[in-house]
């Protein structure tokens, strides 16, 4: 093309040296149609709506529409970097799939979703909720909330459940995400937050990443990891797959899924026996060392290695690298937390950090990489089943009294702890919960054992879903309310560092879409609880939230919208307005009354389901860089959809040979709960005993049809990361493959240069 030749030939103009241009066509001025057609009215500073890193970005607004994105160089975490999700996040705002008006099934569950007015749906919801609560008790209605929305909304949903509906049952999708890290933080350290800001990585001599695919799930954090390594920091990665981060690690421990606590105990054994523990730190700042040591003594690396499926030398070397470092960091994520012993795993990681004195200094600490955009804030502002705002305990009399005084309600009207999200499903099946208001969540992709979850949700008397796209879950709803994207409202979120930052409003919501807080206030008004919900803006909600958290563990009292803007985010706890915030925790004391951390002895618990003759392989699930959580947004973004349009089964060459599966063949993976069929990606970058399937897809593509719904005893997180499975070559493609356009799949494969492997077959085999 002629125009293509007139691209800026800056390559030939080195600085100011050469004035001449080698452009043969248009000279300095690029042809007009190469520019975007609209003049940009405003650059709205905000943050990415996706993962917990919360990169700073500007939204470009033209004619009242979001038309593009520009990274923010001034935000101290991403410094202008953005991942592909961030660079395309703005495309969800004007998406043609947006829900623009409320939908309702007027003719029962089998009827279609029809357009309705806000008054009609809100009145119906209130009428039905009231009737159900009158007949079956207040607790027959549940709130299933989420963490990918602002603190203001999360806070308001907790208050809405307890004050407007008066139900015990309110919980959120963070239960499925990092709740076991919460448990580990609370048991070991006393404060539920990562101990260090991400920039501490640059001060570390050793970083131990266990169960976190940093390169794909937190791409921007990779920058800090790589910079740390440029400074000589050693990297240890434990993961059953070779992830982009593991690829270059100084030490890669491809452990068997579900054996993290054994590995961590084995490392502690070596650290004890090689004298790498920090005795002074243990003596002065911890309790419980003797018991912990006694248990760790029973995990010599030679034996642990056999359970983890590793070479013992590798465990010893990892322990030496970690224990010998002057300052070392441990980062964990879903790999370690999505297990029926997730809390134990986190505690075992904290034990390792505590026994080597790695806390309270630059580059020393332990933290979870929180996955959801507001995963940190969502788990502390009181939408959890057992929690009041500010990480207050719902069963603690003082906390109850304080919150009731802020809310202006009688203490006996404040419900007690309810079911966590994962236990709501069996409660729905038992008809204990008969109606549910769900927002900011897509359990029909994200819950384990999808068939059971679907039965539960379909069996509800009334199921209301708020979303801005018709998600897999919204498809089951009786009433669907059109929500807003992050660009259409303002509010704060708390990033994975514990930094409170603020989204700014860029545009007005399209059509009849409304913000979640407006919907909650409107429902409350119709429920006759208007006086508790007199909010007209997110700022008013935030001010009440600040008051609620005053003096609590996660103290937002000193944080204001102005201060967030001024400081580019404020780390909680921030107890007063002149307090700058607390980037690094535990410098002086831990979060327990005596200021000491707790070491807990952790015995290894095997995965709930280990391979046997019928199900000889291990299935693990995870994420890919192109999709965020259930993919409800990212699967609608053309670029991201094209990169990873369908799930695949990552399988080791040796296993594939045994099953006579070639790269690109359709493989059916089956567990005791269900089966799914997807093309095989035959690689050597995974353990031969393990299969991997990404989880972002719905309906028959959902790997969560297969996963094990066994729950962690303390925090009820399901065991997504390990279950027993069997794989066979499928004779024919699955139904979903017949529905999709074959040409699209082929084009996608060519673009991605991967799916399936280029060497073997050109396309997923349709035969």
């Amino acid at each position, binding site marked *: 093309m002629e125009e293509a030749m007139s691209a800026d030939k800056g390559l030939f103009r080195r600085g100011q040296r050469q004035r001449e241009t080698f452009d043969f066509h248009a000279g300095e001025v690029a042809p007009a149609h190469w520019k975007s057609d609209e003049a940009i009215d405003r650059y709205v500073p905000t943050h990415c709506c996706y993962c917990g890193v919360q990169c700073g970005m500007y939204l470009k607004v033209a004619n009242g529409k979001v038309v593009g994105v520009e990274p923010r160089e001034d935000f101290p975490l991403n410094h202008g970097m953005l991942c592909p999700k961030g660079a395309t996040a703005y495309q969800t705002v004007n998406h043609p799939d947006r829900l623009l008006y409320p939908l309702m099934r007027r003719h029962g569950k089998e009827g279609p979703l029809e357009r309705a007015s806000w008054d009609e749906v809100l009145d119906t919801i209130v009428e039905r909720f009231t009737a159900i609560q009158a007949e079956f008790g207040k607790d027959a209605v549940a709130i299933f909330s989420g963490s990918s929305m602002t603190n203001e909304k999360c806070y308001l949903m907790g208050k809405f459940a307890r004050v407007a509906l008066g139900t015990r049952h309110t919980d959120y999708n963070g239960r499925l995400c990092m709740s076991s890290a919460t448990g580990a933080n609370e048991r070991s350290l006393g404060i539920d937050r990562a101990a260090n800001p991400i920039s501490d990585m640059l001060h570390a001599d050793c970083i131990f990443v266990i169960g976190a695919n940093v390169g794909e799930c937190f791409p921007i954090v990779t920058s800090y990891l790589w910079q740390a390594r440029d400074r000589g920091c050693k990297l240890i990665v434990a993961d059953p797959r070779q992830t982009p981060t593991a690829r270059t690690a100084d030490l890669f421990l491809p452990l068997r899924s579900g054996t993290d606590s054994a590995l961590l105990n084995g490392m502690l054994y070596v650290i004890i026996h090689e004298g790498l523990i920090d005795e002074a730190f243990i003596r002065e700042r911890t309790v419980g060392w003797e018991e912990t040591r006694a248990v760790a003594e029973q995990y010599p690396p030679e034996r642990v290695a056999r359970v983890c499926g590793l*070479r013992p030398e590798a465990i010893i070397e990892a322990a030496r690298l970690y224990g010998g470092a002057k300052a070392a960091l441990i980062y964990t994520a879903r790999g370690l937390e999505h297990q029926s012993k997730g809390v134990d795993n986190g505690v075992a990681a904290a034990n390792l950090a505590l026994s080597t004195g790695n806390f309270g200094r630059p580059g020393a600490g332990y933290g979870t990489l929180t996955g959801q955009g507001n995963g940190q804030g969502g788990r502390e502002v009181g939408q959890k089943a057992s929690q009041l705002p500010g990480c207050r305990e719902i069963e603690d009399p003082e906390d109850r009294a304080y919150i009731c005084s802020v809310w202006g309600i009688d203490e006996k009207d404040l419900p007690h702890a309810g079911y966590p999200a994962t236990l709501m499903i069996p409660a729905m099946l038992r008809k204990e919960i008969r109606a549910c208001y769900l927002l900011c969540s897509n359990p029909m992709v994200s819950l384990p054992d999808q068939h059971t979850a679907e039965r539960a949700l379909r069996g509800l008397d009334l199921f209301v879903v708020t979303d801005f796209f018709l998600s897999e879950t919204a498809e089951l709803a009786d009433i669907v309310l059109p929500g807003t994207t992050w660009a259409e409202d303002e509010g704060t979120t708390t990033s994975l560092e514990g930094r409170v930052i603020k989204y700014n409003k860029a545009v007005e919501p399209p059509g009849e879409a409304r913000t979640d807080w407006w919907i909650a206030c409107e429902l409350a008004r119709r429920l006759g609880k208007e006086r508790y919900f007199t909010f007209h803006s997110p700022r008013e909600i935030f001010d009440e939230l600040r008051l609620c958290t005053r003096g609590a563990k996660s103290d937002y009292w000193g944080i204001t919208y102005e201060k967030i803007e001024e400081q580019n985010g404020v780390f909680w706890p921030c107890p007063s307005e002149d307090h700058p915030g607390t980037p690094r925790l535990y410098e002086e004391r831990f979060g327990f009354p005596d200021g000491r951390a707790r070491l807990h002895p952790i015995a290894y618990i095997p995965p709930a389901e280990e391979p046997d003759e019928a199900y000889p392989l291990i299935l693990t699930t995870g994420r890919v860089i192109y999709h965020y959580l259930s993919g409800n947004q990212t699967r609608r973004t053309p670029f991201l959809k094209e990169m990873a349009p369908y799930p695949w089964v990552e399988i080791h060459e040796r296993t594939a040979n045994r099953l006579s599966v070639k790269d690109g063949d359709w493989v059916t993976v089956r567990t005791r709960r269900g089966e799914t069929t997807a093309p095989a990606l035959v690689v*050597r970058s995974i353990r031969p*005993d393990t299969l991997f399937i990404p989880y972002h897809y719905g309906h028959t593509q959902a790997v969560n049809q297969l996963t094990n719904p066994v729950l962690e005893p303390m925090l009820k997180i399901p065991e997504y990361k390990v279950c027993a499975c069997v794989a066979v070559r499928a004779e024919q493609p699955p139904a979903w493959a017949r529905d999709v356009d074959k040409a699209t799949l082929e084009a996608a494969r060519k673009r991605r240069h991967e799916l399936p492997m280029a060497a073997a077959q050109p396309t997923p085999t349709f035969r």
Partner: protein
Amino acid sequence: MTETVVVKQMFLDPSRCIGCRSCVAACRECDTHKGESMIYIDYIDRGHTVATSPTLCMHCEEPLAPCAQVCPAQAIFYGTYEERVEAGLGLQGAKPVNTFYFGRQRVRTRNYVVMTEEDDALDLMALLDEASLGKGSEVPQATAGRNVEQWVDAEAAGIPERAAPPQPWAPREPQPFTVPTSPIGSAGVHDSRGEQA
């Protein structure tokens, strides 16, 4: 007369690339060619490694190439050589992770760490044994798949475990666990069973 020359260049370091395609997504957002990317990210050999490598158009200059701006791994760097060194990146990766010797040739790589089966392993350590280590050079790290072993259950391996039967859609009840008095679990005698797992 002397003239100060500021030479800004594109630096590519595939060994840092994590294959995230941030550059591809950012390139598409450029106003001059919106919707079309001038960059490719290729898996080098997906069957063996997740290593990837970017191929750039090399056309952008001021203010900043979007690909270089967004790259979270600094695999694409745009600036002067001095800026690059200052950023700690150096030329071809200042501190390569794996340095090994093939005969007398010193090979530095972060990219081609290949996970292989044992029988046809790219055995970096074996190469090392035969190579002459340069004075003061670092001993390379053993990485990747050579740490994989077959596994056995905890009983066979002889480490204590807590039994916890699975109960679908119900939490595992926490069970009391007491520390056995003997420092070595009695289960150690089952060791021989492990080979068949």
